[in-house]
C-alpha cells in the first residue's frame, strides 16, 4: 500500500510542478491584458481605456498577486472549470473547446498506436526470422531513417507521395464530415505518427524475437517438425511481447508530443493544434488546460505501467 501511496503522491507532485511552471511562465512571459484588450491595454493616458483595463483586471483576477491567481485557477481547475479564453471575442469556454477537440486527438492517437503495432509486429517477425541477412539489414536501415526523420518532414513526404502524387489519401481533415470520412482522413496523419513509432517497436521486438528464437524450446519445436511460420507466431512471438507491450504504453506519452506537430501540419482541430494556436495567441487558460491534460495523461499512463509492472513482477514494489 505504501508503494502505491508513494507513486500517487509523486504523480500529484509532478502535476503540481508542471502547473506551477506553466502558470508562472505564461504569466511572466506575456501580457494577458493585451490579449484581452488589444492596444487599449497600453493606452493608460485615456480614462476610458483605464476604466476598461481595471474592469478586465478584475474580471480575469489580474489585479491579484500571482500566487493568489494560481490558487484560484487551481481550485477552479480541479473542479472542472478551466476558465474562459483570453483572446476571445466571446469564444466558447475552455472546457467547451477541450470537449470538442479531445476526441479527435484520442482518435488520432488510437489509430496511430494501432497502426504502429500492426506494422511493427509483422515487420519484426520478418526481420528476426532473417536476422543479419540483407532483408534484416535493409529493415534496420529503414528503422533508423524513420526514427531520425522529424515528424513534420515525414508528414510532408507522405502528403506529397500519398496525397498529391498518388492521390490515395486526403490531404486534410474536415471536422464536419461524417465519421467514416473522418476516419479515412485521419489515416495519413496517424501513419505519420505511427511509422517512427513502428520503427522503435520493430527494433525492440526484433531483438527480443532473435533472443527467443535461440531458446531451447524453439529448437525443440523445430526439431519436432513445427513449421517455421508456426514457430514464429505460436512459440516465439508471445514470450517476446513483454517488453514490446511495456514500450507501447510508455511511448504513448511521446506520441502525444508528436501529435501536436502532426495535427498542425494536417490541420486537425485537436488538442495539439489548439495548443499551438493558443501559445501563439498567448491564450493562457487554453495553454494551461491542454498542458495539464497532456501532463495528466502522461503521468497516468506511466502510473498504469508501474501498476502493471508491479503486478507482473512483485519485486518492483520492494
Amino acid at each position: 500500500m505504501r508503494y502505491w501511496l508513494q507513486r500517487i503522491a509523486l504523480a500529484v507532485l509532478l502535476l503540481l510542478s508542471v502547473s506551477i511552471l506553466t502558470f508562472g511562465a505564461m504569466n511572466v512571459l506575456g501580457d494577458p491584458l493585451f490579449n484581452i484588450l488589444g492596444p487599449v491595454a497600453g493606452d493608460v493616458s485615456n480614462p476610458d481605456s483605464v476604466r476598461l483595463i481595471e474592469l478586465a483586471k478584475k474580471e480575469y483576477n489580474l489585479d491579484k498577486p500571482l500566487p493568489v491567481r494560481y490558487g484560484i485557477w487551481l481550485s477552479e481547475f480541479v473542479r472542472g472549470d478551466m476558465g474562459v479564453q483570453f483572446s476571445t471575442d466571446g469564444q466558447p469556454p475552455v472546457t467547451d473547446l477541450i470537449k470538442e477537440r479531445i476526441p479527435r486527438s484520442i482518435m488520432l492517437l488510437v489509430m496511430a498506436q494501432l497502426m504502429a503495432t500492426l506494422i511493427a509486429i509483422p515487420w519484426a517477425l520478418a526481420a528476426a526470422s532473417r536476422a543479419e541477412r540483407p532483408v534484416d539489414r535493409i529493415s534496420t536501415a529503414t528503422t533508423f531513417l524513420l526514427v531520425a526523420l522529424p515528424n513534420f518532414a515525414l508528414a510532408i513526404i507522405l502528403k506529397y507521395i500519398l496525397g498529391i502524387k498518388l492521390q490515395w489519401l486526403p490531404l486534410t481533415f474536415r471536422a464536419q464530415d461524417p465519421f467514416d470520412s473522418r476516419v479515412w482522413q485521419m489515416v495519413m496523419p496517424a501513419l505519420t505518427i505511427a511509422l517512427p513509432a513502428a520503427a522503435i517497436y520493430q527494433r525492440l521486438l526484433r531483438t527480443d524475437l532473435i533472443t527467443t528464437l535461440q531458446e531451447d524450446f524453439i529448437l525443440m519445436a523445430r526439431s519436432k517438425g513445427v513449421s517455421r511460420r508456426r514457430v514464429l507466431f505460436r512459440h516465439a512471438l508471445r514470450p517476446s511481447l513483454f517488453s514490446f507491450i511495456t514500450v507501447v504504453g510508455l511511448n504513448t506519452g511521446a506520441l502525444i508530443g508528436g501529435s501536436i506537430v502532426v495535427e498542425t501540419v494536417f490541420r486537425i482541430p485537436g488538442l495539439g493544434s489548439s495548443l499551438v494556436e493558443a501559445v501563439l495567441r498567448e491564450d493562457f487558460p487554453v495553454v494551461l488546460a491542454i498542458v495539464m491534460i497532456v501532463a495528466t495523461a502522461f503521468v497516468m499512463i506511466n502510473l498504469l505501467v508501474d501498476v502493471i509492472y508491479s503486478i507482473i513482477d512483485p519485486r518492483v514494489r520492494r
Partner: protein
Amino acid sequence: MGIPRRSMRRRPGIVLSAALVSIGLIAGACSSDEKKSVTDETAAAEVSTAPDETSAPDESSAPVETDAPETLPTDAVVETIAVEENSDPVPGGTLRYGLEADVDGINPTTSALSAPGLMMANAVFDTIAAVDTEGNAVPYLAESITPSDDFLHWTVTLRPGIKFHDGTDLTSAAVAKAFETQLNDPLVGLAVKPFYPATGAITVIDDLSVMFNLLEPNAAFPHALTGQLGYVPSPTWVDAALANPALNQTPVGTGPFKYDSRSQDSVTKFVRNDDWWNGEVYLDAVEFYPVTDPDTRLELLLNGELDAMQTTDQASIPELRDDDSIQNVFNDTGEESFVMINSAVAPFDDIRVRQALTFATPRQNYIDLIGLGEGRPADQPYTPESKYYNPDVTQEADDPDAAIALVAEYCAELPEFCTDGKVNMEFQFSGPAVVQTRIAEILDEGWSVAFNVTFDELAQDEHIQQTALGQYNVNTWRQFGADDPMADNVWQMCRTVGGISLNWPKYCSPERDELLLAAQASTDPAERADLYKQVVQNLHDAYTYVFLTHTIWANSFTENVHAICDRFSPEGVQLKCTGNGRTWFDFVWMDS
C-alpha cells in the same frame, strides 16, 4: 462582459508573422480591411496593418541575388473574371474557401474585421452601399443615399421588406443601433469618432430613414457605407451579443447565407438563405477554412481540397497564374508596402534623420529580393494608373552618400543620439519569421552606412501594440489603397494622433488635413485629383514613409466555380466582385 476584444487572431508560423495585424477599425469615413492589408477602397474601414512582409515570400523560395529579375513589372497587375453570359446556374454544392487566418469574432459592430473577417461577413451581412465596377458607391441595402446641400448630412433610406435571418425587420433603428455600437466600441470607435460630432451623429427620421451627421462635409461619404461600417446586423442580435460576447461568433444579418456553425481556427460554415432579398442563392453552403501557411493553402487549392482561396504571397502568384485550371482575380492597386518612421520620437523627430533613412534605404534590393519581380515598385499610395497619382513624386532611396552627409550634420549637432558618427536607431518587426529577418538584414545593409541599427523582433501582437502606441522608431507596414482616397484619411490626419494613434507615424500636418478635408468635400473630380496629388507631395515631404512595392492580392478559384463576378445591385448595376482580398458569394454557383 463589457470588455472589448482584441482585433485579430494571430497567424502562426512564418507566414503568419508576415501577417497582419491590426486593430481593424471602422472609420466613419474611412475604410480598411484586412488583417494583412488594409483598405478596401470602398469602405469603411478597419485598420489593418501589417508588416509588409506579409506579401513577401517564404525564405525558402527567396532567390539569391543573381536570380533578381532584370526588368520589373511596370503595368498594373489587374486580372479579373468576366461576367458569365448565358450561364445556366446549378443549385447546390458547398464552396470551400481558404482564408489566410481566422478572426476573433464576426460582429461588425465590435470585432476588428480583417480580410478573412470581411470575407466571412460578406456571406452573412449586406452593406448599405456597394461599389460598382466603375468605383462608384451605389445604394445596396439602401434605396437611396442623399446628401444635404453642404454634404454635412446624409440621409439613408432603406429598401422596405428586408428581413434579418432571425426574422427581425431591417429598419432605420437597426442601422442606428449598429452605428452607435460601433461608435461606442473602444477600439472600433477609434476610427469612427474622429469624423462625427460627440452627440447626434445619427438621427432616426422614420422607420426606413436615418441621417448621418458628419463633422465636416464629405461628398464621398457613401463609400464609408460599403465596408464594415456599412454592414447592418440584426439589432436583436447586437443587443444579445453585447450581453453575451459568445454570440459574436454567431452572426445574424440579411446576407445571402445564414450562420450554421463555427469551430475556432478550423471551419466556419454558412448555409443558404432561401429568403434572400436580392435574388436566388445557388450554393447550399460556404465553408471558410483558415489555412495560415500560404504554401499549404495553394497546395489545397491545386489539389481540389479547396475551391477558392485568398493570398498576398508573391511566391504563389506565378503558380496560380500558370495553372490553367485556376481562375484568378489579381489586383495590385490596393495597399502598399513601406517602411514607416515614427516622427514623434528622437532622433526621427528631426526631418534630416528621416531623410537620411530614406536615402539609405536599399529599395532596389528589396524590390529584387523580396518582391521577386512580381510586385511593382511603389512611389506613393497610388499606382500610376490612378487619377490621384502624382507623377512628380518619386520615392528617393539608394543614395547612401546623401544619407551620410545628413547624418554627419545631425550628429554634429546632437551627438547624444549618435555613436561613431552614425545615428542610433531601432528597427522593429514581428517574428519569429525567417522572411522578416531577411527583410531586416536587407534593409540594414543599406541603412548601416549612416545608422547603427538595433533589431527589435517582437511577437506580432506586441509589435502592433507598440506601433499603435508610438513605441517604435522604424518598422515595415502595409496600408492605403482604398477605393476612394477619402477612406485613407484616418491614417493621415492630426485628429488620429493620440494615445492609440491610427496616424501611426504620429505626424500632424494641418496643411495635409486641410487638403484632405477639401478633397472629401469636393464633387469636382479634377479638383479632387489635384488635391490628392498635393496630399501625395505632402506625404512625401514629411519623410515618414519609404514606399517599397504595391501589394498584389489574389483571389483564386477552381474552374468549377462560376459567376464569381456576377454581382449586381437590385437596380442591375454590376458591382465590384473583389477588393483587397475580399470576394462575395451572392450568385456564385458550382458545377460538379
